[in-house]
């Protein structure tokens, strides 16, 4: 379904044009073109150090690009901050998990609603009716997200006390809370066993169908990438090596060379 929409020539939700960044004299990403379409699960793969996480940092404005443009939802994102980008509808997870360790699992998800269900500090201090209405809404939505990510049993745990796999899922729940149109997942299956990875794949598919959002993921686990991504971009030395369906990528000699060496 999703591939078809892409092929129908719809405007992409994310359109990256000739993107590049240099750190000092080192070019980390160069001349990258990448599109993600509505409701699509896209993959970004490449050997270690290929610049995949740098691409995520560029998309979310942690780094400012040296060259090129990023259009999100048809609008140029130049000059936007990390916060603006999230408000515009891009949410992400992190390769090295970044949770709010001293907050409960439930509160971690609730932070995601910061701009979705806002109310002022005065409302909070005076405990005005709006506070109770908003908090009730946030609580219900947050618990729904925990249920989807199969974390409902952990709601009152401290985030830092969660098992590794659950921490990765909590990051996804927190990102979903911000009501994104595009979700960026940075190695969501890292450190998970095959069974957990299998479950995660189902969850990612469910999230895409349930929320109708686009997902772009970085992953090393080829089983996961080939299993759920509809389109894959391969990155090597910061440059795009290949782009296509999983079948095309798997049979691409350039890709095989980059992964296996000469």
């Amino acid at each position: 379904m999703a591939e078809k929409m892409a092929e129908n020539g719809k405007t992409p939700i994310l359109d990256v044009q000739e993107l590049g960044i240099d750190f000092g004299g080192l070019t980390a990403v160069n001349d990258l073109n990448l599109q993600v379409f509505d409701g699509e699960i896209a993959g970004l793969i490449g050997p270690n150090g290929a610049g995949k996480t740098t691409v995520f940092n560029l998309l979310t404005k942690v780094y400012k690009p040296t060259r090129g443009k990023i259009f999100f939802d048809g609008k140029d994102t130049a000059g936007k901050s990390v916060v603006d980008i999230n408000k515009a509808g891009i949410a992400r997870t992190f390769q090295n998990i970044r949770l709010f360790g001293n907050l409960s699992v439930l509160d971690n998800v609730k932070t995601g609603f910061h701009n979705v269900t806002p109310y002022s500090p005065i409302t909070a201090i005076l405990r005005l009716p709006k506070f109770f209405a908003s908090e009730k809404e946030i609580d219900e939505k947050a618990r729904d997200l925990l249920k989807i990510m199969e974390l409902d049993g952990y709601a009152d745990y401290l985030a830092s006390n969660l098992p590794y796999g659950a921490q990765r899922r909590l990051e996804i729940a927190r990102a979903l809370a911000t009501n994104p149109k595009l979700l960026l997942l940075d190695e969501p299956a890292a450190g998970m066993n095959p069974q957990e990875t299998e479950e995660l794949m189902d969850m990612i598919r469910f999230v895409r169908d349930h929320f109708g959002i686009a997902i772009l993921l970085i992953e090393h686990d080829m089983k996961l990438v080939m299993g759920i991504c509809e389109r894959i971009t391969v990155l090597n030395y910061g440059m795009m090596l290949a782009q296509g369906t999983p079948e095309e990528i798997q049979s691409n000699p350039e890709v095989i060379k980059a992964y296996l060496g000469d």
Partner: protein
Amino acid sequence: MKEKKSLLSFGGDKKQRGRFLSFAIVIIAYIAVEILMKTGNLNSLFTSLLVPITCYVVAAIGLNLNVGVSGELNLGQAGFMSVGAFCGVCVSGMLAASIPAGIPRLIIAIICGAILAALFGFVIGIPVLTLQGDYLAIVTLAFGQIIKSIFMNAYIGMDSEGLHVSFVQSNFKLQPGGKMLLNGPMGATGTQKIANFTVGAVLIIIALLIVYNMMFSRSGRAIMAARDNRIAAESVGIPISRTKMLAFVTSAALAGAAGALYGLNYSTLVPNKFDFNTSILILVYVVLGGLGNMTGTIISTVVLILLPELLRSLQDYRMLIYAVVLIVIMLVTNNEWLMTKWKSLFAGKAKGGA
């Protein structure tokens, strides 16, 4: 499932008990002290410490919001108290004729002190909050020093022509019959003492309400998220500077309110009272009480103010012992081996009792 909705509802359930404990402690302590005072069982030394204790508790609760909840080291809390104190004293002095009643004037002075301190907090917050870690701490330290030197050189008075403000003593002249409000290094003199313990206790309750209601809300979650992981907080759309500013300004406002109450408890108040050492003292109350733990802050503030008085019999050695107590508490509470022993002792007891 019906939850009573009021100013005192926090939304949590397990956490709620901890929060009620701090209110309960304040109210019980207040009643106990009032009974002791009415029956004449409280000596004059302790009576004279009551209002200062409430002031430091309020300033420490504010600082804990800043240091514990927001995670930013602030070495200038006394500076904000100073702003509140001298603002409060001036306001009270100016209104003495129009509002002779003490309590309403005290309340206005406290509100003015809080607002002015909050404004200072906002202005200082602009450079402070773009910095991180120890650099931020040094700016708050610098701010405390700047405030002190400004008040050391401020001459403020009121006469038939209105308010006079000068930073050069020789330029400062008042019409006959005018009233000196601030006199440079001598500070505020001849202040009418209108502060009282009840207002102090109420101020603590208000401070607790503000801090707790903020902590357990959207803003509080954002403040703690920004503390735990800046980058992740930004990635979910939390603006870091604005969030930290909220904690910083609230903390400053509470210190300002506390300062105003403090200033109106003495007939004279010198700017040197609120120096770096006072800032450090408040920080010690907060750290010893536990970061983010308001009940702990209240208890540690009271104990640490009373400790030197209780050690009075040891005369010259008391401050030395105070220092040793401070070091030993830090060493013990941060020793993993001792803490696990301590916890297992309690766990064992709990099992034995059950």
